[in-house]
């Protein structure tokens, strides 16, 4: 059933990976290029059939190096294009992501995290927060990174990823994890809710009736490169001013705020509810845009909360951004584990209670 859907009228029960793929189709993705890796292979499998059926472009690329560069080629013509992959394979794409940021190519990359480092394993992990938000490409650049917390958000943020990528001409990553990719939840597919962005001012279409266009990152003169990178950072500032997304839960009177992203936030919310029943003033904060990071909002909350507890399925990656945002005003503690599964609600509650005592 799910394999053939485009826009079901009703709510459907669907796996995260299929939801993302179907949302990409509905967002008007014209080209998909990919290479298999668990836990996201269903995206490429779904796209292989659907794109051909719709007469859109699909290539089984020979590697992730090739896949991301194919996406760049397609996007350089103004097309909506994407690839999807995971962890060690996204490591192979870092060079291209730096080029694409510099050349302002609006590609979309779906990253469904697995365990690491190295080949790691296929269990859920959030170990690629740094890979997505900082990246391994060279030079000064920033990508836009969106992190869904449930399967419906996988759909909504896939739409948004295409929109933001083209609106700002900036490579955009949807950062999910193996749990979201493999989990089934009820989802509604609405129509793509964003305006189509006019690419006609920059896209490569052939130099007809105009000068030729060049999407380059190479600037032999130092001052030209300086001005160019500054203009990129003006753009990043605009993205930060306009596009930061986050979710707050019972933070108004909270003594301690638990910060988490992605699938783990579900358990955090449950833990907050358990604590509230016990009469503890606990709240939760979930960044939805990991880049730009909701630093201002966390800074604001650090005026009222006495402590933050950051929890992640990794050894402490986002916690650094929270500490930067809070800037020493109150303590920021960490609860994490590298890979394998969720951090249990009871474990989060226990840690909250321990943090309230110390």
């Amino acid at each position, binding site marked *: 059933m799910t394999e053939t859907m485009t826009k079901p009228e009703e709510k459907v029960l669907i796996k995260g990976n299929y939801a993302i793929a179907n949302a990409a189709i509905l967002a008007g993705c*014209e*080209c998909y*290029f990919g290479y298999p890796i668990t836990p996201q292979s269903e995206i490429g499998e779904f796209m292989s059939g659907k794109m051909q059926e719709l007469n859109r*472009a699909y*290539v089984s*690329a*020979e*590697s992730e*190096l*090739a*896949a991301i*560069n*194919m*996406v*760049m*080629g*397609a*996007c*350089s*013509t103004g*097309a909506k*294009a994407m690839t999807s992959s995971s962890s060690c394979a996204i490591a192979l794409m870092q*060079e*291209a992501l730096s*080029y694409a940021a510099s*050349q302002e*190519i609006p590609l979309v990359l779906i990253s469904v995290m697995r365990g690491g480092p190295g080949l790691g394993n296929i269990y859920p992990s959030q170990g690629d927060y740094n890979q997505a938000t900082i990246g391994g490409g060279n030079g000064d650049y920033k990508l836009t990174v969106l992190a869904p917390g449930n399967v419906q958000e996988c759909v909504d943020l896939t739409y948004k990823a295409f929109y933001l990528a083209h609106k700002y001409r900036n490579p955009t990553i949807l950062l999910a994890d193996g749990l979201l990719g493999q989990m089934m939840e009820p989802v509604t597919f609405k129509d793509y809710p964003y305006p189509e962005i006019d690419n006609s001012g920059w896209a*490569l*279409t*052939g*130099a*007809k*009736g105009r*000068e*030729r*266009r*060049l*999407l*380059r*990152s*190479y600037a032999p003169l130092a001052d030209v490169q300086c001005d160019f990178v500054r203009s990129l950072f003006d753009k990043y500032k605009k993205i930060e001013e306009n596009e930061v997304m986050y979710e707050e839960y019972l933070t108004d009177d909270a003594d301690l705020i638990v910060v988490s992203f992605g699938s783990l936030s579900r358990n955090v919310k449950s833990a907050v509810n358990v604590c509230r029943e016990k009469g503890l003033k606990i709240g939760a904060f979930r960044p939805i845009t990991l880049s730009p990071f909701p630093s201002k909002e966390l800074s604001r909350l650090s005026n009222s909360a006495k402590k933050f507890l950051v929890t992640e399925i990794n050894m402490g990656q986002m916690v650094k951004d929270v500490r930067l945002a809070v800037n020493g005003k109150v303590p920021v503690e960490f609860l994490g584990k590298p890979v394998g599964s969720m951090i249990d609600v009871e474990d989060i509650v226990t840690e909250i209670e321990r943090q309230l005592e110390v």
Partner: protein
Amino acid sequence: MATQVFKVPDSIRKDMRYGFCPGCDHGVAVRLVAECLDELNLKEKAITATSIGCSVCLYDYLEVDAVEAPHGRALAQATGIKRARPDKFVFTYQGDGDFASIGWGESSHAALRGENVTAICINNTTYGMTGGQLGPTTLLGQVTTTSPTGRNLEYYGYPIKITEHIAMYDGTAFAARVSLDTVPNINNAKKTIKKAFEYQMEGLGFSFVEILSTCPTNWRMTPQEAHERVRTQMMEIYKPGVYKDIKTLK
């Protein structure tokens, strides 16, 4: 009445001067590409994904839309362009290091898939831009900055015969090797490039031209000596000719 017998091709940018070293065959090759684009009326529908190396300068000289691919990835980007916009004319102009070393995976798979694009590869038996190091096509015995006593098998293995490989693939419609050492050979090179372009226009699959080319700077030779080397050493190993032509294949 005066007739114009020689002009700068329309596909060459008017405000630019070649930055190639004096006597380098890149200049001749770029001009041939421009003349073919002109004669086939392709300038306005052409898009190129560039290579990293001395060939990257192509986008400074051609009045053609271009995206700058990372080193070796030109044919992956060309694939993306062509798949997104099949009505465009898509070509790459790559160094041999770009095409056959760091980009060998992307290059051969584009050919294998039969991508309907054209690749031109400049074989100058060295990494020119970085100062003349040993590359995949460096000849046995050739001295470079990273083969100070010459390419030997023990340390470096064999050089690659690019066109012979590309010709092997089912997706390749046309594969040929040409040289620029004499006027007749330059004329033949132009005809060959044009043919490769026409095969793409006819939708026949991957078309490929390897151009034996000089790097007088890194070879430490005069342009004349460099062409002599192309003739006496390179053409002995890298024999010019058409290695695959889908139209004459039975």
